[in-house]
């Protein structure tokens, strides 16, 4: 296309060594992003092009990632970063769109009452906003050799990765048998109800069954997952490859059913893990374990500062004043809760920067050291 050429030329100029030398030490991105927020030479950023609120709890974002996006395999997830009240938060979401719609990605978030990012997106997401993405990650993905028989099981917000699988296969004109079992509170709580119905109507090989846990008798399946539902779906788990995603209760039931039949090898599950608990009893020291992710060292947690404990574990992280002034020891806390030894304040946010000389662990903590 003619319009592509000047764009590509601009990018080549901006990515040149000369441009880098002229914009040192900040780099080209830090200038261009002031006028084109979605531009970056390396980072994946995306512009929100459409926002849909299909149910009372869900919000579906259609994103247009920049040129750095390498696409995804159906079932994988991305890390989405958004800024809320000045603070950047990152959460994992699985694209629900077909992997073959190259330049657009669709994500659906379900607002959880105790959440931070999902309620914000539900309330505030607007077309035009720019968000940051990671490249797609995860092994929960359709194999390149498409299975002859496929069973997809999802509960609640777990619908997104299996939705991507279904859409991708339909997009490819895949002929193999596909059964889709979805569990939700009631029919109004299914973000993709209309799209699922359309796919099932348009593809004879797709069999769609709903189970409504809070409105029994209204779906094709009765209540929560049970072995009988497999017969209703007309699919044999021994023959099919199964992908299941959803809350713990559903996945436990599926796992134990497959285990009883010795079919663990034919089952893939993905559980959406919730961020660290928001409240910790009394802020007292709660025994846990410390994990230093980068060095692969583990240690039993004590009430001492994380810096002291890292050093006791034989590590030598950067440090300076040891009293919370100089920020030399600042590092990324990947997971867990910490207590500020100066104020007693507890912080539970995942993926945040902390000063390890003035913070002690409360329960399990993982640091990027």
């Amino acid at each position: 296309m003619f319009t592509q050429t000047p764009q590509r030329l601009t990018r080549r100029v901006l990515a040149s060594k000369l441009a880098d030398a002229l914009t040192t030490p900040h780099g080209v991105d830090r200038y261009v992003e002031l006028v084109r927020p979605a531009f970056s030479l390396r980072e994946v950023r995306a512009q929100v092009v459409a926002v849909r609120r299909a149910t009372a709890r869900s919000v579906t974002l259609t994103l247009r990632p920049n040129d750095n996006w390498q696409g995804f395999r159906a079932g994988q997830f991305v890390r989405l970063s958004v800024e809320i009240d000045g603070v950047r938060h990152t959460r994992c979401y699985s694209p629900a769109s077909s992997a073959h719609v190259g330049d657009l990605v669709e994500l659906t978030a379900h607002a959880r009452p105790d959440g931070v990012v999902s309620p914000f997106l539900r309330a505030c997401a607007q077309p035009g906003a720019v968000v940051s993405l990671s490249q797609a990650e995860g092994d929960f993905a359709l194999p390149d050799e498409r299975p002859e028989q496929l069973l997809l099981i999802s509960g609640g917000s777990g619908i997104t990765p299996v939705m991507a699988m279904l859409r991708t296969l339909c997009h490819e004109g895949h002929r193999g048998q596909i059964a889709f079992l979805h569990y939700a509170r009631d029919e109004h709580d299914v973000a993709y109800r209309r799209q699922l119905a359309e796919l099932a109507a348009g593809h004879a090989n797709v069999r769609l069954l709903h189970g409504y846990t809070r409105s029994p008798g209204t779906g094709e399946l009765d209540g929560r997952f049970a072995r009988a539902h497999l017969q209703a779906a007309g699919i044999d788990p021994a023959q099919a490859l199964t992908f299941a995603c959803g809350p713990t209760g559903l996945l436990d039931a599926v796992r134990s059913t497959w285990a009883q039949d010795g079919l663990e090898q034919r089952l893939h599950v993905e559980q959406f893990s919730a961020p660290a608990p928001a409240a910790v009893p009394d802020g007292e020291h709660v025994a846990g374990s410390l994990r230093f992710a980068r060095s692969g060292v583990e240690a039993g947690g004590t009430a001492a500062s994380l810096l002291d404990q890292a050093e006791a574990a034989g590590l030598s992280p950067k440090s300076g004043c040891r009293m919370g002034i100089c920020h030399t020891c600042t590092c990324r806390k990947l997971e867990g809760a910490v207590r500020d030894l100066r104020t007693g304040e507890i912080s539970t946010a995942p993926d945040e920067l902390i000063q390890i000389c003035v913070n002690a662990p409360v329960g399990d903590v993982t640091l990027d050291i």
Partner: protein
Amino acid sequence: MSTTSPPQLSPEQLDAFGRELDAIRERVIADLGERDAAYIRRIIKAQRGLEIGGRALLELAFLPPAWLAGTAALSVSKILDNMEIGHNVMHGQYDWMNDAAVNGQAFEWDSACPSEQWRHSHNYMHHTHTNILGKDRDIGYGVLRMSEDQKWHPYYLGNPVYAALLALFFQWGVALHDLEVEKLNTGKAKWSDKRGMLKDIWRKGRRQALKDYALFPLLAGPGAPFTFAGNATANAVRNVWAFMIIFCGHFPEGTHEFTLEETEGETRGQWYYRQLLGSANLTGGELFHVMSGNLSHQIEHHLFPDLPAHRYAELAVEVREICARYGLPYNSGPLHKQFGSVVKKIVKLALPGDGGEEPDAPEPVAGEPVAVERELVAA
């Protein structure tokens, strides 16, 4: 250095003083949010805009108005980059935003000094050991005599000349600061230990010089000498301005110094006390404060080095009130007055002895409010 001894507080008073300052810090931390994020982004946008504009004008630097406007814009850009953005971001003031663009450990500034070395010499050495003789290497930067307690040597006859040179080439002085050249001279450190640091200084300095003194001038074609001169002037303006503001932070008349023995086993309250007495503020308008990177609020900066600096003006009102209640001095004055006293000190200390100042006043009675020679804060 003050000629009077600082007012003394009882341990109980010091604890209470520390708790009041801690309370301010905690309140601000809890309130950090969109307002602070929007502020620093606005400053960054202004700086990048001025830089692009300034450099574009300097490509036409053979036209005198373009040279003047371009040099002015680039000077302001470099000052904003180093002070209100670089210095403050590198303190971790915006780490809570979790944004790589304003991450204290990742930020690099438009200066010859590698930011990693700056974080060590400034955030750690200077801010932890502020005004402790023999510990705080910002006293004299290893080349000047800034305290009577530094032993005189004929070398110091050149004090005013060294100060003028340091001011003019401040970014290079800062770049070499963390090397601790004085330790190399006395044999306390070996050149071979400093190879890594030297390599980093060389790499950073070369990139900075290449951009300002080769690439942008060459892009201007025949106008290259004018562009070169504009860039050199912008660097010098930034150097002299940063030197003035920084030297007004701890050296004006009325600031106190401390000995290692005095500060051993310091409590939180004593640490705050030392930061307050070792620092001095500059008075001025809003633009002046922004251009000084809010280091004009040096006292608030030293009490709360990791709180966003644009809040210092608000905090100063409370800090002054607290100081007045505890009978502590709050050293503050306009730039010409504070810098004048710094220049006086630099000249006086070129000569042997204590610079001919009055001998120390007798120790005041502990806990009693003390009259200080500087501006006393309004109660």
